């Protein structure tokens, strides 16, 4: 039965005008306003399969992991993949990258730009050479919470409103909140964290933009009493329950004790896992970081 032939009754049309919709319309993509099916591709088919298309538009995605796990690499790759047209998984626009810890890895970004045709073999090379990647990545350094708040409330909405960017990356969320507050100031820290996350939500929903927040991890000592968060290792994302409640999709990246080789390159194997998401099953894929970017490693390619 071809369900495209179900007719649109006038009640439904009136309902859509009023902001209501039925699940059927969302599925058929008829509600342009809600855009629930749009995804930002990561640039690798294995990882896109894990995320069922990519990062969801309209919610906060968190990527956490230990230092050196490859979070910044994935974020840089996303900044480039957002520039592609929608049929190749992008959003036809640029990205804003807010650095709070180290300075932005500009050399690595240049290297990734040079190797884009290696990574994205599905895109015709004429299209890739026609895209000016470095023109569309906006970099901001925020050294403290106040400048971060100013950036998010003034500069980023301007870029979003003009359609110049369609991705917001904050690297990293934990750095500023962990170092600026003492242990006794937890109330103030929670308030600032909530106001920060509500700004992010507001931006994400008003401009239908994916937001990626990179987070650090903290050691967990008593794993038996904590049945709240899924624990597959002895670290858990930082900033606690207050932040975890604001996040829609949580991804975790960790280093494994294996390497994988391809051609003349060798990489330590990582694992990207979905901790929780409303539309994804809990699953993971092995991932390697090459010169051209982050790519998922299917089981057949691995050598132990």
């Amino acid at each position, binding site marked *: 039965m071809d*369900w495209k032939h179900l007719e649109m009754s006038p009640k439904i049309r009136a309902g859509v005008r009023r902001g209501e919709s039925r*699940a059927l319309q969302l599925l058929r993509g008829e509600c342009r306003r809600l855009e629930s099916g749009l995804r930002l591709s990561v640039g690798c088919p294995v990882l896109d399969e894990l995320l069922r298309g990519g990062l969801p538009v309209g*919610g906060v995605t968190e990527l956490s992991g230990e230092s050196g796990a490859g979070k910044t690499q994935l974020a840089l790759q996303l900044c480039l993949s957002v520039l592609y047209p929608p049929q190749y998984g992008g959003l036809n626009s640029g990205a804003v990258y807010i650095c709070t810890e180290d300075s932005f890895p500009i050399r690595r970004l240049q290297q990734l730009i040079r190797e884009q045709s290696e990574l994205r073999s599905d895109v015709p090379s004429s299209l890739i050479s026609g895209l000016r990647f470095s023109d569309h990545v906006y970099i901001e350094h925020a050294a403290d919470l106040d400048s971060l708040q100013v950036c998010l409330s003034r500069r980023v909405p301007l870029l979003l409103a003009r359609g110049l960017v369609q991705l917001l990356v904050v690297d990293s969320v934990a750095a500023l909140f962990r170092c600026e507050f003492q242990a006794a100031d937890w109330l103030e820290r929670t308030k600032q964290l909530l106001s920060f996350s509500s700004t992010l939500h507001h931006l994400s929903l008003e401009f239908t933009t994916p937001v990626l927040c990179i987070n650090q991890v903290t050691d967990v000592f008593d794993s038996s009493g904590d049945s*709240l968060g899924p624990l597959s290792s002895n670290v858990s994302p930082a900033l606690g329950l207050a932040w975890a*409640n604001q996040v829609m999709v949580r991804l975790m990246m960790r280093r494994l004790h294996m390497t994988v080789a391809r051609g003349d390159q060798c990489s330590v194997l990582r694992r990207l*896992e979905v901790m929780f998401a409303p539309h994804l099953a*809990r*699953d993971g894929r092995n991932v390697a970081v090459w010169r051209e970017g982050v790519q998922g490693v299917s089981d057949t390619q691995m050598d132990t």
Partner: protein
Amino acid sequence: MAGLSEGMCPGLDEVLLRSLRAADVKTVEDLVSSDIEELARKCSVSYKALFAIRRVLLAQHTAFPVSGADLYEELLSSTAIISTGNPSLDKVLDSGLYTGEITELSGGPGSGKSQVCFGVAVHISYQLKQSVIFIDTTGGLTARRLLQMLQTETSNTEEQMEALQRIHIFRLFDVYSLLDCLHSLRSGRLQQASVGGGSVKAVIVDSVSAVIAPLLGGKQNEGMSLMIQVAGTLKTMAKDFNVAALVTNHVTRSGSGEVQPGLGVSWSHIPRTRVLLEQVEKALVSQSTLRSATLIKSSRQPCHIKEVFDLQWWSRSKEGSSGKRKLDETDS
């Protein structure tokens, strides 16, 4: 108290009103509690006419006493119990969601609250063939996930699409639009949603804490009053239209480190039944879909009963479950 006005009852005309006001009788209460003989003399009206007016006003304005037995009978005949589709969860909820009440699901991130809401919506719209109103405040609802759950129930595309048609979705992200939406549902949109798709049996709000929690605490008290307004509107809607309200809440840590549902003590009085969802401790293996549901507040069952259920239950094909209306047989 209602003031006396012309036309309230036959015999209460302009002339009589003016003379009553001159005698300092302005409201209905004044009239029925004053001495009729004296009033008749003062206003130069016949005693019989004033007595008749008083009787009519009494009949119109007094409260009508109802016996407890009548109330119980009415409750029995109007309350329906809606199964959630998962028998272990139904056991915790005393066989399902009760119409006319608010049921709350709380749990940490990733504990399965949204998945349970999706499962309940799919169950009601497919198995029971009734409409569901789903208010999404987190942005986590995707139609594709609902379709995935439906595809395990039936492979008939037409039935899947009909079931999707019966789920009405509202996407709101702040408390004022939530209040607007609830008010408009009460004042007529609920009936409109019922036409042509089975009556609305459940209103699911996922999650109510996402819009209210940012307003609580801090120096302004507006958040508290908005929370109570949302609660009042939801409750009256559940009662008036005989729908089951299901809301989700986040969790916080109490002073002693224990996990407790969010939104504080004031909210804890509002739902009739509260369930806490957690990961099952021994299943620390990743990709486990088992969750434990603990009853933390109920007026019908002893608290702290715990059941383990599988989140994948709604995604498994199964035979038809009993979703028919049941009379409540317990007398607790």
